[in-house]
């Protein structure tokens, strides 16, 4: 794999910081009971994970569809995490849709929240491995 240039590295580091910022804000909003806003921010955090890892690899996907394709490539390379990553992204998408439609029951929101959090944890591990 070729080394990404400085611009990509700077973008990767910015996106990595935003993973934490959005996640922390999402957790705060969850504590306040603002579920729609919390879900939206957790979805943003998952997207920032993808932005961070892909920029670390020298790519900068702009559109969500592009990000999903890059995620597919990451999944293919991480078969040990395939199910967690695929389900976690699906869960994050559901939180995003819930923010538009309010369609998730409480227990469904809770399970999607947990799976999206697992996605973020896995992506942060992948990012850390890219650095070593």
């Amino acid at each position: 794999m070729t080394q990404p240039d400085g611009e990509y590295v700077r973008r990767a580091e910015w996106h990595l910081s935003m993973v934490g910022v959005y996640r922390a804000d999402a957790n705060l909003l969850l504590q306040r009971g603002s579920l729609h806003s919390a879900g939206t921010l957790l979805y943003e955090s998952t997207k920032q994970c993808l932005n961070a890892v892909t920029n670390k690899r020298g790519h900068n996907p702009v559109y969500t569809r592009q990000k999903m394709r890059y995620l597919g490539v990451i999944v293919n390379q991480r078969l040990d995490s395939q199910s967690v990553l695929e389900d976690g992204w699906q869960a994050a998408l559901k939180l995003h849709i819930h923010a538009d439609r309010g369609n998730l029951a409480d227990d469904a929101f809770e399970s999607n929240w947990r799976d999206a959090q697992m996605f973020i944890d896995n992506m942060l591990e992948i990012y850390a491995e890219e650095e070593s």
Partner: protein
Amino acid sequence: MTIQTAAPLELLQAAEREYEVDNDRESARLLAEATTALFDMLAESRGISLSDDYSAMARELDKRAGNGRHHYVIRLGAGEHLLEHAETGGMEDYGMVEWLHITQGGFIRDTLRELGVDVPPAPAKWRWTYP
């Protein structure tokens, strides 16, 4: 209830043919059908009573997996999103159509293989490549 064990694979392959010609709403409908047919197979193989309550079935499958994950609940939900796309095209709004096809197709393939079904490789359009 008698289970048609070949049904999920046949439905998946029918979905692949429709997706190949960009008929993604019909392929989504077929994938959604393949998903519930697969859940019938899973339930039968694990000794879970068959019913129309697929949510309860998915929760029971996750409970038995015992890893704190919601894998089957999420995959059942993906099938519901596919059905919604078939009926309204609404998932295009979220850029999810390709994602749902490839990941749900993969889930169906992997699960069928776990159940001992001989499943041919996925067509090229059902595999991730760099954009």
